[in-house]
């Protein structure tokens, strides 16, 4: 069995998992109107960590995450030769545009004297889920015993202007799956989880991580598939691989970016999978779209839902806005979700999924 625990969220909603959970329980959003953020100096809704400034913020966030999670597990694990760090990020350090990953990764490795060079996964918006799945596979293949998986992306003019050029940024805080949705709110933050073959390295009891998969849409590099083919295939493979049927899923933590086409695509895929009645949310209304961090932050939040017996409201959703109906959680709900499906989709046609389960 593979275990997952020590989950961490760092976002505009807080620097600890507890602060983030408290904010989500109160349905508070990290998204705010940031002055002069756009290419033509427009004010834009972003999920910005307003106290995170100055140079090297990407590296500082990762170091902050490592310092927080080392307290949540057996101290020897951090430095063990049997531990691999997996870092998920789309853009790395935006200040080092010629080589955005190597210097921050070296800095983290040196700071903590890690035995192995961290592995960087950069597969657009599915990076976080791919990183967790990769960690699972590396442990399952007995190449390592433990993995610390960290997802991080920070806001930059580069990313904001880019999404503006795609007309993908909404003019309100994002409203995933809602009829009035009109684009994403970009965010920044950092998430982390620890994955291990051993149950007893965790301070708090871990959950079970079931092997996930990826599948490509083979359709378009930036437009979601009209049929949800890649997401359909990835979820189907993940379910079959683990021998889990749709009626065993208690909840789906979807990707839900709040662009018209993405959310529509997801609704079609979940409908094809016979999952349209399973309670579902998108957490982008709380964190914005944190790109390479999103899959990890949202996995961490899903773990908090299992641990605390609550389904968080899909913030920003009011009225069905997809051609296929979904069972979107419209208010915080007391429940005991035991099995949660987490999905992500992104540029390059990538789709990824994994399953979390209580022990």
């Amino acid at each position, binding site marked *: 069995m593979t275990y997952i625990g020590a989950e961490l969220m760092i976002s505009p909603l807080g620097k600890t998992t507890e602060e983030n959970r408290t904010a989500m329980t109160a349905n508070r959003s990290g998204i705010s109107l940031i002055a002069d953020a756009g290419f033509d100096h427009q004010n834009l809704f972003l999920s910005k960590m307003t106290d995170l400034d100055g140079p090297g913020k990407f590296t500082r966030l990762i170091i902050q995450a490592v310092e927080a999670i080392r307290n949540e597990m057996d101290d020897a694990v951090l430095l063990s030769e049997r531990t691999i760090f997996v870092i998920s990020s789309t853009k790395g350090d935006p200040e080092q545009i010629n080589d955005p990953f190597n210097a921050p990764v070296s800095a983290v490795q040196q700071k903590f004297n890690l035995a192995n060079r961290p592995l960087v996964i950069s597969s657009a918006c599915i990076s976080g889920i791919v990183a967790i799945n990769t960690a699972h596979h590396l442990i399952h293949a007995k190449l390592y015993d433990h993995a610390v998986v960290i997802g991080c992306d920070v806001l930059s003019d580069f990313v904001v202007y880019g999404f503006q*050029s795609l007309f993908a940024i909404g003019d309100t805080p994002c409203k995933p799956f809602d009829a009035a949705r009109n684009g994403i709110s970009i965010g920044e933050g950092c998430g982390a989880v620890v994955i291990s073959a051993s149950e007893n390295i965790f301070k708090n009891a871990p959950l079970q991580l079931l*092997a996930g998969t990826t599948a490509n849409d083979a359709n378009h590099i930036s437009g979601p598939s009209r049929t949800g083919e890649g997401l359909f295939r990835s979820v189907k493979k993940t379910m079959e691989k683990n021998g889990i049927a749709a009626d065993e899923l208690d909840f789906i933590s979807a990707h839900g970016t709040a662009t018209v086409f993405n959310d529509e695509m997801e609704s079609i895929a979940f409908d094809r999978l016979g999952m349209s009645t399973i309670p579902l949310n998108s957490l982008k209304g709380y964190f914005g779209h944190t790109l390479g961090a999103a899959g990890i932050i949202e996995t961490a939040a899903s773990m908090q839902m299992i641990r605390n017996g609550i389904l968080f409201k899909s913030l920003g959703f009011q009225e069905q806005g997809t051609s296929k109906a979904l069972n979107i959680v419209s208010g915080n709900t007391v429940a005991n979700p035991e099995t949660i499906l987490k999905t992500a989709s992104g540029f390059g046609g990538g789709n990824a999924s994994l399953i979390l389960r209580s022990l």
Partner: protein
Amino acid sequence: MKFITAYAHLKENICAVNGEMICRRDKDSGDSWFKQIYKQQEFVYPKFHKMDVLSQAGFLTSKLIKRANPQFAEKYKDDEIAMLFANQSGSAETDQKFVHAYRNGAPSPSLFVYTLPNIVMGEIAILNKWYGESLFAVLPEFDPEFYINHCHILLSAGSEAVLCSWLEIAGNQIDVFTFLIEKEGENRSEFTADNLSKIAFAGNLHKTEINANY
């Protein structure tokens, strides 16, 4: 057992398939080096011209590998061929072009969509209608162990073949090595770290030799 059943090198001045040079850069040509190969190999895919350099390099080397192994694509189902790509600097080459565009005019949407390193795998998936697994990693240097470990994982979890690539392009420096790993391969090199290093390095020798001739 696993085998390296085909491979292609793309360097600053030469392009080689299974160790045989198929194209040498014409320094006097008005066309970009990658476009020279595209034309010389008579590929027809107008979208090629819209791609960034990483995607063009992935397109060319994967097409050449398919051409060298014509039966390979038909052997497998559409989700049985995985892609395992890596490089050192992500999409830095295109990132810089995008920054240049918005500092000197406006952000270009068609550049922005290529400012992610995994897009090249998306382009190859679209070209071939492949729905399989894919992974893009950023490593400090070409590392045979990375490909060995992750091919082992992919091939024991449902994939039947893995198209691998190391594709690092920074300014005028081009170091692209694409190779195909399959479970069967008569008379082909076994997929070991040693063999992979040798084959990857053979491309570098090639490069030195060619450069010396200029």
